[in-house]
């Protein structure tokens, strides 16, 4: 089990033995992957609304990450880096699919395929479905900031770094995004 400062507490034997077989690059990749795969997958899924496509695009994001790590590119902020790549790949995906309008949600099976607390599944499904549907009606930029701030819990400065916009502009987008979402959900 990893401690908050990244050292191993000695209670995870599999971790020790996997180190034997890992290069330095792979070790770094592994750390970043474990930290961000859930967030990146969720971000992509909320935008493309398909589990299969989200898996493919998520794999592409991390493939690019590994290539950059292998090239010893100096990545100061992995989170921002990954979200930027993910966003670009989603935009490319839209272009290829020629979908500039809001996307239709896949059927509820897509949501039920996702792993989450099964005890509350029935109630949560309905709420999740509703909010996911409403999200697809937002502009892409508003969608992004809403996901990053309210779901992934990124701060305004962090979002500003990802979007290359001022913090003021991010706050305005958050406000407008939430307002739009409220309108669609009501």
């Amino acid at each position, binding site marked *: 089990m990893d401690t908050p400062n990244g050292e191993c507490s000695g209670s995870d034997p599999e971790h020790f033995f996997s180190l034997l077989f890992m290069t330095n690059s792979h070790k770094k990749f592994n750390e970043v992957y474990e930290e961000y795969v859930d967030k990146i*997958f969720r971000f992509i899924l909320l935008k493309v609304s398909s589990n299969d496509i989200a*898996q493919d695009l*998520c794999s592409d994001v991390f493939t690019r990450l590994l290539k950059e790590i292998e090239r010893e590119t100096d990545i100061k902020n992995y989170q921002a880096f990954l979200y930027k790549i993910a966003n670009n790949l989603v935009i490319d995906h839209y272009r290829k699919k020629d979908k500039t309008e809001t996307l239709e949600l896949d059927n509820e099976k897509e949501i039920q395929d996702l792993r989450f607390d099964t005890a509350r599944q029935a109630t949560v499904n309905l709420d999740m479905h509703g909010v996911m549907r409403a999200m697809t009606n937002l502009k892409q930029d508003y969608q992004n900031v809403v996901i990053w701030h*309210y779901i992934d819990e990124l701060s305004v400065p962090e979002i500003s770094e990802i979007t290359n916009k001022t913090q003021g502009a991010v706050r305005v987008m958050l406000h407008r995004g939430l307002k739009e979402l409220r309108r669609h*959900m009501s």
Partner: protein
Amino acid sequence: MTEQEVIQKLKFLKQIKPNKEWAILAKQEIIDNNSAVISNVETLTITEKFVNIISEFRFNFLKPALAPVVCFGLLFGFFNIYQNALPGDLLFSAKKITEQAQINLTPEKERSKIELELTTKRWEELVIVANENKGENLASAILEVEQATKKSTDSVAEKKDITIEEAELAIKEVEKIKALENEIKSTGVYADKSLIEDLEEAIESYYIVRDNKTLAEQEIQDLQNSSFGYTPEQEQQLEEIIQLFEQERYSQALEMILLFQVAKQ
């Protein structure tokens, strides 16, 4: 709807996570595919790998003393760890590779026995996963059980000239598997009912071999107990029956016993 309510609903979406098995496989695939095209992959020397492991320990003052311990632990511990790996764990694939090697090195006629033992192991792993509530391993464990049981069923069904020893060992493994299946049922974890039904059907001939032995043994005992007054011809036939029994040809022995008893009447 208020803004707070919208935010609350948004937070539900935090529960969305990728399938854990997919996440593990995807990571490995990315590493495997990328390693194939990179020509100058930096590889750690054995010393560097060793130092990596030591440096992972929290308490600096213990590091020098830990070196020999880690050495020994690595060798002994690695074997133990991957032997205890469960379906879905990182080292489970290493475990399966070893098992496959074991099967490949086993003579053809003994393979069904090894495969049955491995099937029992997969069921035992599923019981552990179910009892310890390891949700992230469950799907893999069920898949492994299904694959192993189907493979064993085919293997058992194809086997010809079953010896009594083979029959008894196979029946013993299947009884273990059935007991494990009952244990799984009590945890509420799903496993395909037809898996065991198919295996039982395949092993029916093994029960016949075992039962034939038991029956032949009893009949021979009875014949020997009432052998007073047998003609020399009948004595000769009894000798032949006993020889067939000793050669483990139980069904032929039983046929001769039947003819013997009909002729005696």
